């Protein structure tokens, strides 16, 4: 799993390539935790390159959502495949972590 980062205004865009399984989610969690500790408050996660997401991947999103909610920040996701979107819906987090059809739309919203 690889993460590319780019800044757009106040937001940091994390583009993920690969699997958000147990191993991939650990890498993602470590990087997002570092960003939040460094003071970043607006995060956008681009799922264009994500072909698999398991519960560990959801936890790796819920955790920063909870942390950022306390710090006045936001996390949003964009470009979900149908399968990944189904997992979001069944886990009941699509109503909390906002989902956008494109990265620019997500950046505009955070």
């Amino acid at each position, binding site marked *: 799993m690889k993460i590319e980062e780019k800044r757009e205004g106040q937001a940091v865009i994390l583009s993920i390539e690969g699997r958000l*399984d*147990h*191993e991939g989610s650990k890498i993602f969690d470590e990087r997002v935790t570092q960003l939040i500790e460094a003071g970043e408050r607006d995060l956008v996660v681009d799922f264009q390159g994500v072909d698999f997401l398991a*519960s560990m991947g*959801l936890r790796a999103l819920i955790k920063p959502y909870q942390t950022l909610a306390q710090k006045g920040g936001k996390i949003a996701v964009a470009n979900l495949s149908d399968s990944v979107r189904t997992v979001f819906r069944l886990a*009941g987090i699509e109503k909390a972590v906002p989902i956008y059809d494109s990265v620019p739309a997500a950046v505009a919203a955070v």
Partner: protein
Amino acid sequence: MAELTLQVTNDFAALGPVSAQVRDFLCACHAPDAACFLTDLVIEELVTNTIKYGYDDGDTHDIHVSVNFHKGCLRIEVRDRGNAFDPLAQEAPDLTLPTDERPIGGLGIHLVRQMTDDVHYERRGEENVVVATKGFPAE
């Protein structure tokens, strides 16, 4: 009926290569993409549970996984000789809680239950056996 059988060691790093083998197998069976994703998810969640809770000795153990896809019916079986553990007995997560108050946990088995037609557990001798099934009607 084609069946893929695999032995996975109780190491999280072993799951990535398993996924690739399972996807190749299902692709050869002309299974739909949704079946590939679901199989990947079921194996990831069940084997992860076994790695976390199955063993106390720190040794290497084999977890047996079998997958078959026949006439639109997907069947996934995961067997291990670890501690008796029924993953289906875990309490379902409370999805009515706001996300910022929700405990992080229990989601994996919740997803397996929601995404399959049937999943059941049985302690068979010294083995934990979990079988999940899902039908995919012809498109």
